[in-house]
């Protein structure tokens, strides 16, 4: 489907979420060091960090959740935490992935809470908002496929769901998945494999008849 160049720049192909933005201006490391200072320029430096990575954090939260519910709160809380713990960041250049791990933790907490509430019958399960995940220009077949994947992901435990989404929707490397989730590489592999096995077992291709 043809798309305008402006629209194309807004889109991220799967796998480019945390690695495709090109920083303009001071590096993350410089900004983190400046934001740690106890003066007026600190807030300014943190604002630059925020504006550089807020979009990434928003997209990450939406794609893991499968909806835009509470994503602004999640991103807000993530940056508040990041600001409060900026001194704990040992590698200032790794701010982007460090922020991503905070977002992942917050989303996981929310997913677990939502699941518990749904189990108790206090609320219905949160529906997947496909329009929030896929670009409006995605073809109908792909939308059906994506809808089925997210519907199956909802039935998985939060950790497996997150690991698989990071690996196959966000297209992170395994090491990056482990870092974002905060687990060992082996655990990340195990979670992804379990989710993958479940999805392959239950996934039915919408193109089955054509393929047959």
């Amino acid at each position, binding site marked *: 489907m043809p798309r305008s160049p402006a629209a194309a720049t807004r889109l991220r192909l799967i796998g480019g979420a945390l690695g495709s933005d090109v920083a303009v201006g001071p590096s993350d490391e410089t900004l983190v060091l400046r934001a740690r200072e106890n003066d007026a320029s600190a*807030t300014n430096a*943190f604002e630059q960090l*925020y504006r550089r990575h*807020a979009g990434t954090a*928003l997209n990450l939260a*939406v794609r893991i959740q499968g909806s835009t519910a509470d994503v602004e709160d999640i991103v807000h809380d993530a940056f508040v935490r990041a600001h409060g713990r900026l001194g704990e960041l040992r590698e200032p250049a790794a701010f982007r992935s460090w922020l991503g791990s905070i977002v992942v933790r917050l989303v996981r907490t929310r997913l677990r809470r939502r699941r518990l509430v749904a189990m108790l019958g206090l609320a219905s399960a949160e529906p997947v908002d496909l329009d929030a995940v896929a670009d409006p220009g995605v073809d109908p077949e792909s939308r059906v496929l994506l809808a089925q994947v997210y519907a199956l992901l909802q039935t998985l435990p939060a950790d497996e769901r997150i690991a698989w989404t990071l690996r*196959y929707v966000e297209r992170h490397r395994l090491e990056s998945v482990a870092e974002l989730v905060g687990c060992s590489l082996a655990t990340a592999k195990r979670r992804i494999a379990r989710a993958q096995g479940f*999805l392959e077992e239950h*996934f039915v291709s919408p193109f089955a008849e054509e393929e047959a």
Partner: protein
Amino acid sequence: MKTRLRDLPRFPLRDHGSPERVDRIWRRLAPEVGARSFFARPQAWWAPAALVAVFGAGVFVGARWVRPDATPVLSAERPPAVEAAAGLQTQRPSAPGTPNVPPHAQPSRRMRATGVAAPSLTLAPVVKLAPPASSVVAASSPPEWERLAEAGDFEAARVALEAKGTFDGALGTASAPQLMTLVDIARASGSRERAVAALKRVVGVFRDAPEAPLAAWTLGNLLDQAGDENGASEAYALYRRLSPGGDFAEDALAREVDSALSQGNLELSARLIAQYENEFPNGRSLEEFRSELARRSERAQGNAVVDSELGAGDEPAPGSEPARSEPAPGKARSDEPGASPKTAPK
């Protein structure tokens, strides 16, 4: 047919980082980040400084006001040295809301001085004697018996006291706080007489001392246990004069009413009950005192009629009891097993 999900096509995903949304979040975030920029940083020196200050203040307060040998508040066991003293008293259970200060749980001298109202109006003539000069010297260098008693070892304190001289000898030279310590030692060793002597000296010689109200209250309790109702009433009355708004003021007056009723002194009882009603309109024992006074008054009138019919000088009718032999409401309840007295605790 199953599809390998690794072969999923790469979908174009929606971008949620619109400038409007990013600005909206920043508007919420900026005040928090700005406010926290100073306090939340590891460079903030005030957090460890505040911790050090709080810790130092705690150490200072602990060293200054808390006795290391103080009985733990939540301890289920009583200190063995004080067990003997506890056996001296047949305590009345505490009424709800009434501060109960059994002798084994009484705080240290320093603590006893706090919370007791200063003596105000002295109604009875008081003979004041000059405090012994040696009490000042004793305060600077506490004797062995006092140090041991402060540590809770009352038996060793008694032995040390006997080694230095007699208990009565110490009474003559002790200051008010030391006298209260002597009271503790005497009660722990089972000597009520010595405890009473020390308490009488506190209320007689050191009537302005902060220990005096508590001494008067304790004296009343000990005399009451010894059966000296008159002495107990005087001590309770003294407590009320020394500490009109004290913790035990209501109980002290109630004890006086009890004593007057049990002695059959209806006139005094009526006057004390009226005073009780005036000072403690919501007093716990008010209704009971009223009904008891009415009952005794009716009985006294009936006895008077019988006496007048029998004629003056006749022997009392068989079965008729003198009013004095009948216990007061509080006494009756406290002496009966399983009763729930409302009068004051000791």
